[in-house]
C-alpha cells in the first residue's frame, strides 16, 4: 500500500472541502474521458440521421447499383444513389496497397529488429516513421506531378505490354491516373503504421527461443523464418488490418491520382473513383439532397473502417505489450 493510495481513503482527509475539490476533480476528468465516447456516438448518430432518407430510398440498391445521379431537391430524395463504383475503387485500391505494403513492412521490420547494426536501428526506424508525418496532400502533389508519371507509368506500360497480353487485370493501354497508381501511392502511406506495429511484434519474441534456434545451428534467416515469423502471425494480421483501415479512409492523395471517374472495370490501369475521393470532390457542387447522398457514402466508409479497426485493435490488444504509436 502506497502513501498515495492510503491517503485517498484516509479519514483525516475527508473534510468537506477535500471532498468537494477531489470529488469535483475526479468528475471533471471522468467527463473529459467520457467525451471520447460521446463524440464517437455523436458522430454515428448525426451522420446516420442525415443519411437515413438515402438508405431508406435505395435499400440494397445502394450497394449494388452503379448509377450515381443526385437530384436537386432541398427536402426529399429524388435522385439515384448507387455506390458500387465508389466501393469498388476504394476496396481495390486498398487491396493493392496492402498487397504491396505488408511484405515490404515485414521485410523492413525483420531487417530492423534482427539484422541491422545497432547504430542504424534508431535513425532508420525514425525515417520510416517520418514518412507517416508527411501530410497526405504533399504525397498527393508529389505523386501527381512526379512519382506516378515518372516512375509508376513506365511500370504500368511494361506490365501492359507483357503480362497484360494474357491477364486482363493488366491489359492496356494504361492511363497515368488509375486505380493501380492510387494503390501504389496508398501502399507508401500505410507502410509506416504496418512497419511500426510489426516491429513491436517482432521485439516481443522471447530471445531464448531465438538463441535456442541459433544454438542448434540455424542461420539468421532460418531463425526468422521458423521462430520469429510463426510466433508473430496474429500481430502481423492485426497490423495488416490496421493498414487496410487506413487505406480505405485515405482521401486526398488517392483523389489526386485515381482519375476521378467512377467505374467497375477489371483493368487496374484505368481511372476509377473512391468513396472518400467522391465525397471530397463532389461536396462543393452538391445540392442539399446530393450532400445527404455523400453523407450516406461516408457512413458506408465509416462502417467498413470501424469494423476492420475494432477487429484489428482487439487482435493487437490481446498481444499485450504491443500498442503502436498513436501519432503514426
Amino acid at each position, binding site marked *: 500500500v502506497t502513501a498515495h493510495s492510503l491517503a485517498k481513503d484516509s479519514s483525516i482527509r475527508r473534510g468537506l472541502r477535500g471532498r468537494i475539490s477531489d470529488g469535483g476533480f475526479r468528475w471533471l476528468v471522468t467527463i473529459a474521458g467520457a467525451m471520447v465516447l460521446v463524440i464517437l456516438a455523436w458522430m454515428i448518430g448525426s451522420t446516420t440521421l442525415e443519411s437515413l432518407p438515402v438508405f431508406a430510398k435505395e435499400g440494397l440498391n445502394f450497394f449494388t447499383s452503379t448509377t450515381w445521379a443526385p437530384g436537386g431537391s432541398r427536402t426529399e430524395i429524388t435522385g439515384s444513389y448507387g455506390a458500387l463504383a465508389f466501393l469498388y475503387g476504394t476496396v481495390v485500391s486498398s487491396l493493392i496497397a496492402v498487397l504491396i505494403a505488408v511484405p515490404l513492412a515485414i521485410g*523492413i521490420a525483420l531487417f530492423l529488429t534482427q539484422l541491422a547494426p545497432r547504430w542504424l536501428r534508431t535513425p532508420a526506424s525514425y525515417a520510416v516513421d517520418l*514518412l507517416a508525418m508527411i501530410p497526405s496532400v504533399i504525397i498527393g*502533389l508529389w505523386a501527381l506531378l512526379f512519382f506516378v508519371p515518372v516512375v509508376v507509368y513506365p511500370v504500368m506500360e511494361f506490365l501492359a505490354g507483357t503480362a497484360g497480353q494474357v491477364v486482363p487485370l493488366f491489359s492496356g493501354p494504361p492511363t497515368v491516373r488509375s486505380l493501380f497508381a492510387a494503390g501504389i501511392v496508398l501502399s507508401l502511406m500505410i507502410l509506416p503504421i504496418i512497419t511500426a506495429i510489426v516491429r513491436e511484434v517482432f521485439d516481443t519474441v522471447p530471445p531464448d527461443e531465438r538463441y535456442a534456434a541459433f544454438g542448434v545451428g540455424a542461420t539468421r534467416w532460418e531463425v526468422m523464418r521458423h521462430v520469429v515469423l510463426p510466433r508473430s502471425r496474429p500481430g502481423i494480421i492485426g497490423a495488416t488490418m490496421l493498414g487496410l483501415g487506413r487505406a480505405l479512409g485515405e482521401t486526398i492523395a488517392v483523389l489526386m491520382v485515381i482519375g476521378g471517374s467512377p467505374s467497375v472495370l477489371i483493368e487496374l490501369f484505368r481511372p476509377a473513383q473512391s468513396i472518400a475521393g467522391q465525397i471530397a470532390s463532389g461536396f462543393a457542387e452538391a445540392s442539399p439532397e446530393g450532400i445527404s447522398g455523400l453523407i450516406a457514402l461516408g457512413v458506408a466508409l465509416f462502417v467498413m473502417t470501424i469494423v476492420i479497426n475494432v477487429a484489428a485493435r482487439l487482435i493487437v490488444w490481446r498481444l499485450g505489450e504491443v500498442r503502436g504509436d498513436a501519432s503514426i
Partner: protein
Amino acid sequence: MTASSAPVEMSSATRASLRSRSSNSVRRQRVDLVMRLVLGAALLLAIVPLGLIITITLQQGLATISLEFLTSTAPLSFRRFGGGFFHGLVGTTMMVGIAILIAVPLGIAASIFLVEYRTSRLAKPVRFFTDVMTGVPSIFVGLFVYAALVREAGIGFGTFVGGVAISILMLPIVVRSAEEILRLVPVDLRNASTAMGARTWQTTLFVVLPAAAPGLITGVMLAVARGAGETAPLILTAFGTAYLTTELFGSPQTALPLLIFEQARQPFEAAQGRAWAGALQLVALVLLLTVVARLIAARSRVGR
C-alpha cells in the same frame, strides 16, 4: 536444451537440414545471404521515396518560394505567376490554434482520467475507443462536423468549424501520448506530494503534470503536426476561399493544404509552382514540429 524450455516450432524439413549440416551448409548460407540482402532492400524501398519526396519538394519549392510568396495572397487566375499562400498560412494558424485550445485541455484531462483513475470501469472502454478513433477516416470527421455544426446547428462554414474538425482528429493522439507519459511519472513523486499534505487534484496538477511537461509538449506537437497537414476534413468545414480572412464564424476560410490541393490540380505551370512552394512551407512546418518534438522527448527525464 530440453523441448519443454524452448518450444521452437520447426518444420521437419528444417530439422533434417540441421542434422545434415555439412552437405547442405553451402546452400543454406547462400539462402541466408540472399534473404538478408532482400530484407535490406526492403528498407531501401521505403527510404528512397521519402528521400525523393523531400528532395523534389525542396528543389521545386525553392524555385518559387520568396518573400512575396510568404506575405501575399494568390492571384484569382491560376495562369498568372506570382502571389502566395499568406491567406492559407493565416487560416492554418487560426484553425490549428482553435484545435489546440479544444483538444489539448480535453485530451490531457482525459489522459489524467485514464492514468490516475485507471480502476474506473469507464477507463478500459475509453482507452479502447480512443485507439479506434485514431482510425476513423478524416473525411468522415469532416462530414460529421459539417452535419452537426453547419447543417444542424447552422453555424456556417469557416474558421471555427474547421478548427473543431482538426481538434477531433488531434484528440486521440493527444490522449494516448499524454497517457503514456503520465504513466511514466514515478509513483514516489505522487507519494511524496501526498505525504506533504497535498490533495489528489493538487498532486496531479502541481506535481505530476509539471514532471511530465516535456513529454506532454512532445505529444501535443506531434498532434499539431498531424492536424496542420489535414486537407480532406477542411474541404467540408472550412470550405476554402481565395481571400484573406480572420473571421471566426460565417465566412469560409482556407488553409495551406487546401491551397496546395487546389493549385496542384490546375494544368498551369504558375499554379503548380505555387503548390510546390506551399508544399515546401507546409513540410518545413510539419517536419520542424516533428523533429523538435522528438528532440524534447529525447532530452526529458520522463519521456519515451
